[in-house]
């Protein structure tokens, strides 16, 4: 059975993003759920599944059960999924399965965290033997990938910069974004190296905030407060092995995840009107665009140049600013923006007549990947 169009997102909500001192991951999560339920026109009692990605700053057991308690829901299903930044899309898949099999009918999926003002131990922790060699945090590992991509395909720092410029341009059109000022390629080039070839403006910030979505069956979705946004396709692919040991650094899980989701949706990249691609570092959307088939392998750098990924270009990318511009939150904001684009709610940053949006999530150091194809209607 092809699940295309059988499930829909009927509510989205988020908090402010940035440095939110004094706000706990739980407090932020509850606010996002409250906003998503209000958007859907639902009460907590209308929801019977609470699904979470664990806060990275606060790994704790049974997090989804704790969130259910705090929002006053006694659910049929709780679950916390650990696919890092791919978890939010992974949880959409789990929600679809639980609805399909009658275990629940309406799920809220929420991610909230406060690594900017709370603990960021997870982000700074040494990874295995890495610390002994000075490989701390996340950027040096992505730097290995970026450098290898440059070696194999001639990708340039200017091309990485084009991703940051587009995301910051879009963020400046989003009143809710953390970064309100656009940047130029010169700003990118002038920013200091963090780990060569990655400069500061190649890296997303570490941010506090939360976002949530409500997923239900297409039958239930019709007649709700907002028009449903349909799940047309979903996929995942997990290279899994640590960076030094995986077979390639320049092809990611997107290479299997994307085609899987596109096949389910019955579309090709040419059918996609707008894309929200995970951009913790500028190299990532470049690799994802290649792996999804928007261009040939190695041509992602050229693809993002000449304004092609800016609003008004052939494929507007990360229209709310993405991780690089809206907030460094690991991925839920991309689904939220995808839904808003399909509803036509995005004001000055709305892509005209957008009917199909692809969203990606990925976690670790391109360790996991998930793809979600959203549609304004079921083609």
């Amino acid at each position, binding site marked *: 059975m092809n699940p295309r169009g059988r499930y829909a997102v009927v509510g989205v909500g988020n908090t402010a993003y940035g440095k939110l001192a004094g706000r706990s991951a739980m407090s932020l999560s509850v606010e996002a759920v409250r906003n998503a339920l209000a958007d859907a026109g639902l009460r907590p009692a209308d929801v019977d599944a609470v699904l979470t990605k664990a806060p990275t700053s606060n790994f704790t057991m049974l997090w989804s059960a704790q969130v259910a308690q705090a929002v006053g829901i006694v659910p049929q299903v709780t679950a916390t999924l650990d696919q890092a930044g791919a978890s939010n899309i992974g949880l959409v898949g789990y929600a679809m399965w639980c609805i399909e099999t009658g275990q629940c009918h309406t799920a809220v999926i929420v991610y909230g965290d406060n690594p900017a003002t709370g603990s960021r131990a997870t982000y700074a922790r040494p990874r295995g033997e*890495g*610390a002994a*060699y000075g*490989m701390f945090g996340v950027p*040096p590992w992505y730097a290995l990938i970026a450098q*290898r991509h440059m070696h194999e395909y001639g990708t340039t720092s200017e091309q990485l910069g084009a991703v940051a410029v587009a995301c910051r341009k879009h963020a400046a059109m989003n009143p809710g974004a953390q970064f309100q000022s656009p940047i130029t390629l010169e700003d990118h080039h002038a920013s200091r*190296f*963090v*780990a060569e070839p990655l400069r500061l403006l190649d890296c997303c910030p570490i941010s506090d905030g939360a976002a949530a979505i409500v997923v239900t069956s297409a039958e239930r979705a019709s007649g709700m407060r907002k028009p449903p946004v349909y799940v047309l396709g979903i996929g995942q692919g997990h290279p899994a092995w640590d960076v030094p*040991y995986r077979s390639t650094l320049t092809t990611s899980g997107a290479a299997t995840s994307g085609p899987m989701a596109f096949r389910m949706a019955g579309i090709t990249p040419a059918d996609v009107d707008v894309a929200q691609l995970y951009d913790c570092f500028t190299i990532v959307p470049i690799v994802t665009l290649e792996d999804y088939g928007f261009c040939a392998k190695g041509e992602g750098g050229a693809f993002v140049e000449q304004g092609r990924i800016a609003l008004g270009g052939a494929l507007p990318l990360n229209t709310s600013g993405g991780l690089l511009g809206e907030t460094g939150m690991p991925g839920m904001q991309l689904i939220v923006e995808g839904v808003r684009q399909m509803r036509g709610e995005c004001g000055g940053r709305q892509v005209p007549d957008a009917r199909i949006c692809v969203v990606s999530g990925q976690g670790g150091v391109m360790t996991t990947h998930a793809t979600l194809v959203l549609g304004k209607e079921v083609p």
Partner: protein
Amino acid sequence: MATDVTERPAPDVDEENAGYWDSLRRHELALQRCADCGRFWSPAGSFCRWCLSDRWSWERVSGRGTLYAFTVVHQVYHPAFREAAPYPAAVVELEEGPRLLATVDCAPRELRVGMALEVGYRDLPEGFTLLAFRPVTGGTR
């Protein structure tokens, strides 16, 4: 006196990888090799990465390899690296197949993917030894 006594974080040595770290201490790089399928693997584990056999032994490798990927880290994440920054970190592909995390003993600007390397070692005052590969003059493999 403002002496920096901060130590580099030591690798986590456990029952599975002790053979690897001991081989570095002896300056005789060794990896696990499967007695059934003959292949080497890294990082260390109790079963062959390729056929899940538990018949294996630590075997010395050639020490010859090429630079697979590198970065030059500028950000000071840890006080022990303050003076070293910017410093290189690398993934080296051994002639035998496995890739290893390592550093390379050369100026960062001389690093090139594909450059030929030979194994070297850096004994640290903290009491452990790291892999520090050296460029092979004029070599690209």
